[in-house]
């Protein structure tokens, strides 16, 4: 009777069966090991392709921004416009401010702050005066006669700057152009003279853009801005005599 590794004779005892199965298992494992060793060492390996990973970030597309066109200018009769301007020119009635009761400590603190501020301004003015005098001495050496000038300084300068910002805002509100003229990159300057109420008493197209249509819109912006904010009392002469130059757009 033929036998092989997998057949178990009936006459074998249990220890002998166990031994035989152990040998069988060992032989299979050796064959398996040799097969893998042969494949790995003898047969050529498949090339391993390494594709670069693609990272994709999902970003949402922007929403539609509601860009409403400016409301059309209502066609109003000119008489009405003049009427409204006259109303604006009426003298302004100043009402007394509400008196707020303050504690004595608050008042002292405020006074101290005011004093400190005044000292700071005095120091700054003294410094600037000294600098001017030094410069004047330097120039006088060359034979020139230099006056101290009348440039604005300190609080006056700040006050005037604030006023100019108001002028700028007012004229900017009325500075409109049709699309085709805005694309032309035209420039014009206007000198504006105004009275103590801010009403334009004279405007002069100092430098034309070369396009009469553009110049007309520039003049219209000035006219529509009148009256400008009333100038502080100390600058009334400046805006009335010297005027303010407005550059459209620069």
């Amino acid at each position, binding site marked *: 009777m033929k036998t092989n590794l997998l057949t178990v004779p009936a006459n074998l005892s249990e220890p002998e069966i166990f031994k035989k199965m152990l040998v069988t298992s060992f032989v299979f494992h050796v064959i398996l090991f040799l097969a893998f060793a042969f494949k790995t060492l003898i047969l050529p390996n498949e090339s391993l392709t390494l594709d670069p990973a*693609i990272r*994709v*970030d*999902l*970003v*949402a*597309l*922007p*929403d*539609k*921004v509601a*860009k*409403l*066109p*400016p409301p*059309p*200018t209502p*066609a*109003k*009769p*000119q*008489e009405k416009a003049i009427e409204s301007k006259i109303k604006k020119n009426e003298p302004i009635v100043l009402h007394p401010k509400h008196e707020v009761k303050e504690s004595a400590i608050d008042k002292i603190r405020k006074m101290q702050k005011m004093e400190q501020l005044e000292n700071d301004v005095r120091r700054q003015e003294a410094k600037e005066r000294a600098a001017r005098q030094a410069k004047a001495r330097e120039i006088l050496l060359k034979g020139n006669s230099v006056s101290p*000038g*009348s*440039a*604005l300084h300190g609080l006056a*300068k700040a006050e*005037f*700057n604030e006023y*100019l*910002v108001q*002028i*700028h805002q007012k*004229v*900017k509100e009325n*500075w*409109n*152009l*049709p*699309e*085709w003229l*805005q694309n*032309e990159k035209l420039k014009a300057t206007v000198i504006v003279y105004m009275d103590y109420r801010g009403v334009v008493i004279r405007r002069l197209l100092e430098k034309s853009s070369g396009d*009469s*249509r553009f110049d*007309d*819109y520039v003049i*219209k*912006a000035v006219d529509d801005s009148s009256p400008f904010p009333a100038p502080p009392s100390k600058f009334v*002469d*400046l805006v009335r005599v*010297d*005027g*303010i*130059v*407005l*550059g*459209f*757009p*620069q």
Partner: protein
Amino acid sequence: MLKVMLFVGLLFPGLLLAEDSDTRVYIKVGEASIKKSLIAVPPFALLSTASLAPNHKQIGTDLFNTIINDIEVSNLFTIIKPEAYLEDPTKVGITPAPGNPTGFHFEIWSKINTEFLIRGAYKISDMGQLEFEIYCYSVPQAKLVLGKTYMASTKDARATAHTFADDLMKALTGKTGIFRTKFVAASDRAGHRWKEIYVMAWDGRDIVQVTNHHAISLSPSWKPNGKTISYSSSAYHPGLKSRNWDLFTYDIFAGKRFLISSRLGMNTGSTFSPDGDWIYLTISKTGDPDIYKINTDGNDPVRLTNGPRKTMNVEPNVSPDSKKIAFSSDRSGNPMIYTIDTDGSNPKRVTFAGKYNSSPCYSPDGKRMAFAGRDGDHFDVFTMNVDGSDMMRLTSAKKPSGRMANNEYPSYSPDGRHIVFTSDRSGKNQIYIISIDGTNERRITVDDYNYFQVRWSPYLEGVAN
């Protein structure tokens, strides 16, 4: 003189001193706000003729309506309502007083802030010839801006009105108007089974069918000379016993059709180079759709994109300076907009947002690009700088069902101020236009057909009608 030394510019931008700042106060006002000009367009007078045919008044109405529509679409004017008029236009002449004793008065129109006034009159001869005399005045300047007399056949009344609108734009802005331009689009007008190619005026009128393949014809494109279009059609090939997407060109005025490329697979998405000497398109003869350029005879193919495998590179559009090609590709997963140089080098991904971006189109100045983008369940039209920055959604509309509509296939007008696209917001795929700032959106076609892949023509001034 009081010397004013200011350094306001540091604190308040826009308020800066000029070079003569030591003597004068100088304020830089800054850029102006854009405004629409107020324009008055009273109806045109019909000058009496010996035999007044019933359609003569209708011709005047066509002239008037066409000019009003053109002016509104220009987005440069606000038209003054007739109720605001202080002078009855029917009782005064079309030229101003005092030159014309019975003429209109500038000062009366000035009272309602009129900036421009258009006055016109027409007469029709017994031979059916239209004579249309029309003027545009600047009211603040009391000056004539444009005055012309047009002679045309009465059947060309609308074309005459478009010509005046173009002349008006030229006189005011220095740039030619778009009112004689046209659209080309695919449509199912001839029957729902097929799609043919149609050419129409930009306002959706005068629709003309230019192909009759009894097939699906798509992706039409204008040659820069405005005389020829290219398109693709699923043409039947008896030898193959199947259909193939072939590329054709069609000479609109000669009425002749030419087969340009019938390479196996797709020959679609064509666009002309700005000089008209080359056609850029998608060809899939190798299996994958890639972008090629061929000459206008279909020869000398040059492959510009090459894979990656199993990806598509489609819908090329050439920049106005002929240096770049924008196209759509799914090489990174989702279809996005890419650019390459016209020799195929220097590929660059431009869009990263959304899930599906397609059909890019350069603006005429080459600075912006329009495309259709999808991030939810629908497409919208977007514009962006050519490097992908400053992206802006132009469209957002709902269908009658309440679901969001698809807005696709944007194409710039030749002046770069408008974009045409198709939208299914009405339930049908119709043609719409919108200004590049996303305002002034208008429906152009109003019918029960569908339109696809609409393209705006170049200027057609001087091109025979």
